[in-house]
């Protein structure tokens, strides 16, 4: 199951949903808001999601993981809105009979979520500027000023 959430994620409860007596391995990944990115000091960030498609594509990623790996269940929760440094941005949990599959599926899910699901990250730096991550590099080829604008 893939969900979007505008408030803090209850990881204890999210993990609880995956407990199953046939499972011997559980792997979880969490993405936290770092205080730096590519050498710049980060103050906070805002995640914006194209919700209907993000939910559909996120669920497709989960379904693919269940197909590809010998796992019992997998979940992913992604935050939207404003997050401070240290806050949890994304949570992935996978339960499986064995650890190989739990690790592999966890990794697959976070990698695919990051590259396929329409969620964007607006990073706000301590110097007062901000940038849409990934867009900055692309847009730089066209016009550097558009992507690193004053707040």
């Amino acid at each position, binding site marked *: 199951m893939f969900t979007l959430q505008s408030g803090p994620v209850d990881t204890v409860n999210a993990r609880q949903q995956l407990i199953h007596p046939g499972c011997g391995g559980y792997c979880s990944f969490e993405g936290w808001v770092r205080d730096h990115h590519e050498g710049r000091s980060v103050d906070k960030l805002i995640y914006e999601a194209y919700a209907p498609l993000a939910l559909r594509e996120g669920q497709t990623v989960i379904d693919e993981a269940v197909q590809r790996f010998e796992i019992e269940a997998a979940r992913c929760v992604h935050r939207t809105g404003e997050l401070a440094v240290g806050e949890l941005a994304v949570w992935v949990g996978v339960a499986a009979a064995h650890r190989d599959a739990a690790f592999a599926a966890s990794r697959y899910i976070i990698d695919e979520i990051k590259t396929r699901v329409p969620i*964007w990250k607006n990073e706000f730096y301590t110097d007062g500027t901000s940038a849409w991550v990934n867009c900055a590099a692309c847009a730089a080829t066209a016009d550097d000023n558009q992507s690193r604008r004053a707040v």
Partner: protein
Amino acid sequence: MQIEIEYFALLREEAGCASETIELQQPTPAAVYACLNERHAFSLPAARLRVAVNDRFTEWNTQLDDGDRVVFIPPVAGG
């Protein structure tokens, strides 16, 4: 035909609005973006974007229907 466009992230900021409607004959996502790019001078070329129609990923040369909702998708950055 009337096509609705919804904007997110960098494109929303550059368009200066969250959505708008344009009128085009025999529209495709490619034609819609070219038209809007003239208006807003987006910093992202179409080659950097993906496109969704009615909340599903779609090809750039798909024929659009009246009332279709189109979203241009800048490089994503979840996680």
